[in-house]
């Protein structure tokens, strides 16, 4: 790649169930202004704008058709991107690519979802294979109920372990001013919440959130001029797998999660991820995803994830903190969610996460996004080049 790139500004809205006070464009505008303020830049400094959300979740397509005033893309180059749950990460990667190509010095990325306006499950159903899968209509809950069921069978994990990680997530969310659900949960609260699809309980699943996030990305030279604390985007990768055959159920090791993280580690000389990475912000729309996927990301040995939950390894103060922000299970404005992972990881690298800054000093952060028919985006952020 021609240019090294850094994140020089981050922004997000306060995430809520409903935002009747703003329209979609105004919601994005809040995040864009926050990111520009954080970078201490104005729109004049921005060379290109990349934006995204999930098509159809608000009942519309191509929001960029009428959002250019609010996102700052008027008469600027850029593009709209939609890739399901990974949208926010793919939008971020597109911004990294824009800057890394050498064609643009400073690029703005913005992503959002306003789930108080549409029918997410109706929208989600439209992305399934129209012949073989659309009729089942289980959405994300069905997918993660399967993940949980399979994990319990394979590893001897108990429901308590899911509850432990859910309480951990809530502790982070309660310290994160932007998080959506802040519930002061106990293990019992989680264990007693309503059963949705066995073994999935209400509190195992993310909320439907409204929110937006934005990043300002710059080439190396401009990044050093803009900020004293650039967060270097060391690497990023997207891996797809095939949904139609649900390979990951039949061949548990063969997932896009595993491949994407392995590629990042290999390319960056990381042999012991949990030791060499200081914090991870991973995409877990259900707490069963977090529990089952530690091993997919090679954080721990297969089947060890629930033991980590018992030991508190991934707590904010733990040896290997995961999702100190409270994660997706506390806040899920779909199109923005994967970008929030990168925003939060960047704050951790800068040491600017405030009350949810992890105890371990952060030089390297790892983020993931997962979505649609099982594809994964992973990024590696670092404090120094």
């Amino acid at each position: 790649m021609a240019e090294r790139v850094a994140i020089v500004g981050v922004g997000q809205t306060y995430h809520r169930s409903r935002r009747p006070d703003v329209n979609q464009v105004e919601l994005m505008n809040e995040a864009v202004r926050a990111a520009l303020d954080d970078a201490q830049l104005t729109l004049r400094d921005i060379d290109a704008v990349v934006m995204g959300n999930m098509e159809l979740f608000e009942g519309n397509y191509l929001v960029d058709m009428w959002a250019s005033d609010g996102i700052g893309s008027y008469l600027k180059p850029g593009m709209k991107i939609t890739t399901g749950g990974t949208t926010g990460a793919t939008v971020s990667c597109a911004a990294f690519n824009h800057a890394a190509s050498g064609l643009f010095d400073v690029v703005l990325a913005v992503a959002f979802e306003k789930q108080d306006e549409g029918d997410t499950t109706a929208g989600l159903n439209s992305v399934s294979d129209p012949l073989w899968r659309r009729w089942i209509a289980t959405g994300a809950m069905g997918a993660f109920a399967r993940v949980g069921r399979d994990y319990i069978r394979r590893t001897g994990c108990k429901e308590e372990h899911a509850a432990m990680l859910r309480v951990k997530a809530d502790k982070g969310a309660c310290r994160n001013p932007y998080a959506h659900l802040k519930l002061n949960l106990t293990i019992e609260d989680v264990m007693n919440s309503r059963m949705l699809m066995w073994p999935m309980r209400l509190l195992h699943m993310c909320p439907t959130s409204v929110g937006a996030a934005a990043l300002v990305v710059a080439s190396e030279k401009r990044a050093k001029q803009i900020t004293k604390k650039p967060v270097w985007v060391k690497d990023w990768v997207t891996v797809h797998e095939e949904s139609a055959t649900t390979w990951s159920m039949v061949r548990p090791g063969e997932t896009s999660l595993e491949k994407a993280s392995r590629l990042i580690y290999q390319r960056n000389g990381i042999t012991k991820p949990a030791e060499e990475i200081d914090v991870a912000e991973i995409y877990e729309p259900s707490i069963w995803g977090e529990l089952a996927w530690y091993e997919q990301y090679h954080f721990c040995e297969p089947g060890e994830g629930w033991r980590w939950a018992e030991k508190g390894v991934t707590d904010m103060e733990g040896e290997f903190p995961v999702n100190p922000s409270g994660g997706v299970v506390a806040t899920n404005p779909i199109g923005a969610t994967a970008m929030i992972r990168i925003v939060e990881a960047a704050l951790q690298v800068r040491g600017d996460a405030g009350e949810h800054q992890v105890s371990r000093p952060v030089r390297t952060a790892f983020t993931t996004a997962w979505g649609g028919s099982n594809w994964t985006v992973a990024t590696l952020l670092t404090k120094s080049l």
Partner: protein
Amino acid sequence: MRQEPFVVPGKLVVPYRYFVGRLASKALIALRDDKKVMGVRCPTCNLTYMPPRSTCGRCFSKLEELVEVGDKGTVLTYTVVYHKEPVHPMEPPFVYGLIKLDGADTALPHFIGEVEPEKVSIGMKVQAVFKDKREGNILDIKYFKPQ
């Protein structure tokens, strides 16, 4: 023997609503309750936008100043629709055009009525005809007619 392709029919139903937002809410209420057509002014660029929006795309200022742009304007361009489509709001032939309201610097797409299609012209002065029962959307203006 020729075989027909095997087809599985389907239909997506995607309900939605749209929160109108900070400034457009006020503008649509003024349209519904008082038959007033409102835009928003950017003092930095000295431009008035209709429809109103919360941010000036040119200078990125946050906009606050709602101003009445009036119900009269000029046809910037137009076309006559002769073919029929299910999404069309009325039977062809009908005319739609871009109308610059006198107090605005932008063009509003809308219908042109009470005139033979062949008599419409670019530069024609038009004025809004309001519905009797208004609901708070842009079709509270039925169409624009020649002044």
